[in-house]
């Protein structure tokens, strides 16, 4: 399973890069599930949260700050279970 290691600071300025990185990884994985290694993340802001949720990729080993941030944002449920795929 392909994996993307997330950077330490996922603040507003990191959102764009984060999206490109995940998109790249998804493309390279060629249909395979991409997981996000969140073990090193120390900060997670609102915009990056959107990217993470929208990617629908599972988080792996989320760090304490990530768990807290998910709690704060009221999205703890998606820590273990990614957002359901869009019904299009």
């Amino acid at each position: 399973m392909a994996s993307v290691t997330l950077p330490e600071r996922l603040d507003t300025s990191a959102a764009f890069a984060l999206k490109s990185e995940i998109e790249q990884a998804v493309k390279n994985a060629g249909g395979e599930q991409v997981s996000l290694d969140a073990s090193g993340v120390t900060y997670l802001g609102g915009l990056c949260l959107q990217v993470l949720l929208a990617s629908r990729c599972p988080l792996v080993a989320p760090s304490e700050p990530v768990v807290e941030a998910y709690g704060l944002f009221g999205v703890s449920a998606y820590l273990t279970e990614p957002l359901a795929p869009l019904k299009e």
Partner: protein
Amino acid sequence: MSGDMDDILLVFFQECEEQLQELERGLSALSDGESGKETINAVFRAVHSVKGGAASFGLENLVRFAHVFESSLDGLRSGRVAPTPEIVKTFLKAMDVLSDLVAEAQGGATVDTARIDESRAELQAIIGEGSGTAGQKEEETVPADFTPVPVDFEPVMADFDFGDFGFEEETPAEAASLVVTFSPHTAMYDRGDDARNLLIGLADVAVAHGGASTVTCETAALPALDALETEKSYLSWRVVLPAAVPEESVHTVFDWVSDVCDVTITRDGGPGPSGGEQPAEEQAAPAEPEQPAPVAEAPAPAPVAASPAPAPSTVAEKIMAEMPPAPTPAATAPIAAGNAAATRRPVEQATIRVDLHRVDDLMDLVGELVIAQAALESIGQREDDAQQEMIKRIASMKALTRDIQDAVMAVRAQPVRSVFQRMQRVVREACSMTSKDVVLTLEGEDTEVDRTLVEKLSDPLTHMLRNAVDHGIESAEARIAAGKSPTGQILLSAGHRSGRILITIKDDGGGINRERVLATAVKRGIIAPDAVLTDDEINNLIFAPGFSTAATVSDLSGRGVGMDVVKQAILGLGGRVTISSVEGQGTTFCLSLPLTLAVLDGMLIVAAGSTMVVPVSSVVETMMVNHKDIYMLPDGANVVSIRGACMPLIPLASELGLGGGGTASLSEEDVILVVENESGARAALIVEDIRDQAQVVIKSIEKNYRQMAGVSAATILGDGSVSLILDVPALVANALGRIDTRPSDVRTGLAA
């Protein structure tokens, strides 16, 4: 965008200032033994507001400290901790640190981390003491994982926190929980803010009111990753807050973002957390511990957060720490320039808050003015007896102008409280540096003075109070030996007196040791060794440049510039300093300052053919001279006896060096003005004539020309001529010195 941000920050710092004042007031009340619930709540609110605001700007140092402070205050609020003097002292110290942190965030000097740590440790000790079983909170030393008030978990909450909160009575029993839904606009992220700051703010509010917030995130609007625009905001949130939370505190959270975030606040039916929220239970818990997160890891907002966490080199930090507590912004600028914070420092705030009714009054008067102007105009168009009508109208116009002027002054007037309260801290710090115990009592803080004066008073008062603690108050042992209480008393009072504001600083210390002062002055070459001085003159020597009596130069005062600078500053404001000192009982400094720096009521008099202005406030009475009431003293000076009281006679013209043959040429037409200085000393001024009484606009003569003995300022009269405003107290002091039989040469330098 950054301009907007600066504006908002400016408002935040202004509010911080107010909150800190509120805090100071509350803590002072506490230390006076006034531990009512209202007081404690006010103190708590103040710290909480500072923390809340700081969190939305990502000022992490400030948030971190404010949080610990708040938690410790919480112990007080819930009655777990009693406000003993020691604890209040700790809080006061913490308040000083907090206000320094605010200053730091504003781009001021970096606060010494050791000081922060020390204060935090003390606060934590209070938390530990108060919470007993909840001692785990000591973890807060490591801010990254500090778990705030243990209210987030229901069982614990039921145990002790909830019932103790002082807010129940404000909450209707059947109150409904508060539901806040908000969706940030893209612009909010543009501005550097983040939804998480709002959520933190809400969680904070919840905790402050003894509950926890329940957050649900609405993700329906979120598109697939490839369709997602990273800078666009898609998510929205629904937060359920405990019923005790007032709506206003929620508004406060959204204050900063109200224009870039849709918010709705509703009261949900039924008490307690709304049952509809499925993930409520599991989310409530993590929601809270998250709250200190920004503390640990400077939050996202790029433009704002980048700056407030300056990491100055240790050298710079050390310099800052060693600087005097109130360095001018200019002084720290070169050092602060190194970190980004400097770019954010707002310009010295040039706004004042004014009671609305004062502005209304002003508006009314301006309306009247317009009417008066119209009336004058109509007279101009009339033919018949216009002259008389005109005079009448002009008289009413005059009254109006004066009212308007008063109203404008009222708008500019500010109570001296803001400066006075800062002095508590000055004294506190001075005490801890000199290990003395001094209580500062404030009186007349409500006295209003012109705003410019309020600001400029701060430095001189700081100097004088430091001096009072350092040199005035004796050491505790010496005090006990002298039969006094070991705790020193300093009284700082303000009041209006005959059109001036009088500020007195009175200590109950040892008084001025005149022998030592004299000896030092001789040693420093300030006076000749054989000079004979009056007690008063010796007292005034401490204002002489380069004078310092402290045997050793202390950190605090004693650089020998202090009092000299004080005197210059007060003189620069058109004021005067007088000292009275009783050996063994203490020293009193009196600062007398003009109420306004702009306008005064003056009596127009004539001396040596030219018109001059004497401030009406210093004129006691006027009368014609009666030659048989004038007596000559052996040294040639004259005194006049008025109803049995003798006072020196000052022939104004010759006193000012405008010729005139002194008292000898006294003519029958001459008029005597009995004038008084603020300490009540009187003298009789001989003038040729009294012309009129008028309001004059003060123009500084020092600024435009140079300082002149006996003249305080100049003005422009109605006919366009320039006229001098006399410095009556200086003239009186000079004359009182002169009737002394001693040589006057030593005195001339001191009389100013």
